[in-house]
């Protein structure tokens, strides 16, 4: 769980410091940098997973073929900054597996990861520039300080279940030595409080093709490994109807892809395999209950849902989702609407207690009828961990960040979850530039941090009253080019009979 993120020098994020609770809604106009925040989170996640350059290209334009990594750096006019820094505070899972299937247990689960990267001109064949690691560190946040660092309201039982362990020294550190920066990976005995013996392994930072964190393993540095696992779980969900419509082969992975692929396989797995039976045996009651829960969930969005099921086509070895209406008509996934499929995918994600981590989602209101927006907001909040209950398979450590333009979303999310993104001017070395700034509502928990500004209420007016009472007159072409004249177009909202139905009639 990402609880705080500081970013500077990445795209239009300069001096950004933003805190997150289990559920966050970022609202803002087009082009202010809401997606850049998601890109920063995705970039950090990719840096925990693959070489620096690959991580950079993965957040660049689709495919990243022609992109210079420099485009990730903040720039004013043609001047690029040459450094970017990230600092993330996070709660990591207590246990997990490394790439070789070895078990790891964290020494402590509340950590701060810091990373500074620099642009390096690359004269090689690719000449797209390269990234150099200047500083990397992973340190713990003491249990005693945890409550000071977690500003959102939560119950002690939740915190005690999420934040555990003890540690006195850093996990990764960077020291400036004569030969240049050296990144050290310190020994970590693991969760059994064995004192980490032995010398730290040192690497010259200038030569690192990837972060030290990204190569951690369970045997030597279990806590670092679990921090890596946490960061790898920060994902931007871009649910593509075309991916969700596809049937799955029997051998498909049973984890929902970030584009919504493998929806049938994930649901099928959830329904058929019960984690309480170690041998993976199936129980009919479980299967029926999973499909019923999904159907009930879906009925919050569409009225005509009797059943949801998976058709197992033995001959073609395909799994297909079917939604069966009240009159018995069954609709395969390919016939479902975009909004329905998206809702279905989120419902499956909610049920999947194996799905941990941070989910970023752009504009969840897309394709959803205004009346049903509370249903999708409710579902998204249920996906996020409930901070009044301890972490368990019922209440996995999950977090949701959405961004939106929609008045119906902004007005209906919990007041504490709203963050407003706006462009603000900064002045650095005599140069003025605009960067994104995140503010919260007055008297909400983010305001406890005095560095977080409150949003001017006037900035919310566009969400509160998206329709102007008197739209300016429009030139109305009345057929003859010589006699066109200004006249008001009577909008739906201007009709007398409609006005009477609206809340704010005079």
């Amino acid at each position, binding site marked *: 769980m990402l609880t705080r993120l500081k970013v500077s020098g990445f795209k239009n994020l300069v001096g950004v410091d933003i805190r997150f609770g289990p559920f966050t809604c970022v609202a803002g106009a087009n082009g202010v940098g809401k997606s850049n925040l998601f890109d920063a989170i995705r970039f950090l996640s990719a840096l925990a997973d693959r070489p620096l350059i690959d991580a950079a290209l993965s957040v660049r334009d689709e495919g990243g073929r022609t992109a210079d990594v420099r485009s990730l750096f903040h720039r004013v006019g043609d001047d690029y900054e040459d450094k970017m820094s990230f600092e993330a505070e996070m709660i990591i899972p207590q246990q997990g597996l490394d790439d070789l299937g070895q078990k790891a247990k964290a020494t402590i689960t509340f950590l701060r990861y810091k990373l500074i990267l620099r642009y390096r001109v690359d004269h090689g064949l690719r000449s797209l520039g390269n990234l150099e690691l200047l500083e990397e560190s992973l340190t713990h946040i003491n249990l005693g300080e945890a409550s000071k660092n977690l500003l959102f309201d939560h119950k002690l039982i939740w915190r005690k279940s999420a934040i555990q362990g003890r540690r006195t020294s850093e996990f990764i550190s960077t020291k400036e030595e004569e030969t240049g920066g050296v990144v050290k990976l310190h020994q970590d005995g693991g969760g059994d409080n064995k004192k980490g013996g032995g010398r730290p392994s040192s690497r010259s930072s200038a030569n690192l093709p990837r972060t030290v964190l990204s190569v951690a393993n369970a045997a030597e540095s279990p806590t670092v490994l679990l921090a890596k696992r946490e960061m790898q779980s920060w994902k931007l969900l871009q649910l593509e109807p075309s991916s969700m419509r596809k049937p799955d082969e029997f051998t498909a992975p049973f984890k929902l892809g970030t584009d919504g692929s493998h929806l049938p396989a994930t649901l099928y797995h959830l329904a058929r395999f019960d984690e309480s039976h170690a041998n993976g045996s199936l129980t009919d009651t479980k299967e029926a209950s999973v499909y019923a829960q999904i159907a009930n969930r879906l009925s919050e969005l569409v009225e005509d849902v009797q059943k949801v099921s998976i058709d197992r086509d033995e001959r073609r070895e395909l799994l297909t989702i079917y939604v069966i209406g009240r009159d018995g008509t069954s609709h395969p996934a390919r016939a479902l609407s975009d909004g329905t499929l998206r809702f279905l995918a989120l419902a499956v994600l909610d049920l999947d207690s194996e799905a941990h981590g941070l989910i970023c989602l752009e504009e969840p209101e897309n394709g959803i009828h205004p009346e049903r927006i509370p249903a999708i907001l409710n579902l998204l909040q249920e996906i996020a961990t409930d901070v009044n209950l301890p972490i368990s398979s019922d209440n996995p450590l999950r977090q949701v960040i959405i961004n939106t333009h929609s008045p119906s979303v902004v007005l209906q999310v919990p007041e504490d979850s709203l963050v407003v993104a706006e462009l603000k001017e900064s002045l650095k070395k005599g140069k003025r530039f605009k960067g994104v700034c995140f503010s919260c509502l007055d008297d909400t928990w983010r305001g406890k941090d005095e560095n977080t500004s409150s949003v001017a209420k006037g900035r919310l*007016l566009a969400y509160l009253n998206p329709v102007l009472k008197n739209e300016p007159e429009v030139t109305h072409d009345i057929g003859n080019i010589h006699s066109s004249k200004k006249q008001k177009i009577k909008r739906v909202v201007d009709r007398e009979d409609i006005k009477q139905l609206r809340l704010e009639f005079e």
Partner: protein
Amino acid sequence: MDELRYTLITDGKSDQVLVPILTWLLKEHQVDLPIQPSWADLSRLPYPPKGLTKRIKWALELYPCDLLFVHRDAEKESCDFRVAEINKNLRGVSPTVSIPVVCVVPVRMHEAWLLFDEKALRTAAGNPSGKDPLQLPAMNSIESMLDPKQKLYDLLKAVSGLRGRRLARLQESDHARRVVDYIDDFTPLRALPAFRVLESEIERIVTIHGWCLDSHSDTKRVTGLT
């Protein structure tokens, strides 16, 4: 103070083009703080407040700031009359306005301040390299023009290069709003008395409140001594 937030209250929506002009003036007077402008959009309130006193009160409530600009076009009155009118309304605001207030009163209407940059006009009209003749009014005649807004609209139409239906559908007000975006330098406006009044008032306020570079170095010197 780590930023200068100002709010502009205007007669109408189109007057928000004054924002870049005011920001330019603040920068001209060496404000060395990030400047965060807001145009007080009160039209979205369920009951848009009528009367300047109420509008000032609402604007300060919705867009908190360190400096308030109140705009009124002089229209048929004299600039002094408008300024007195604004001040009278200001005194009526309760609680008392405790931040500095600058009156922005162009002679007749603000469009008079957008009639000096040929390139900006042509670009805003969507025809930056057009060759249609464009006769800008002389600077000394601008403040005596009867209807600068109509003049601006006419000029925009004339240089748009559009014909027929497209010309008929041209929304002059949208293009007029773009003109200011293409002007980097408002220096020529210093020829206009009303503009000079605004500028000297801004200069005075900026100096008194120590928002400018010079006053900062003064403060530094003082703290250095102590």
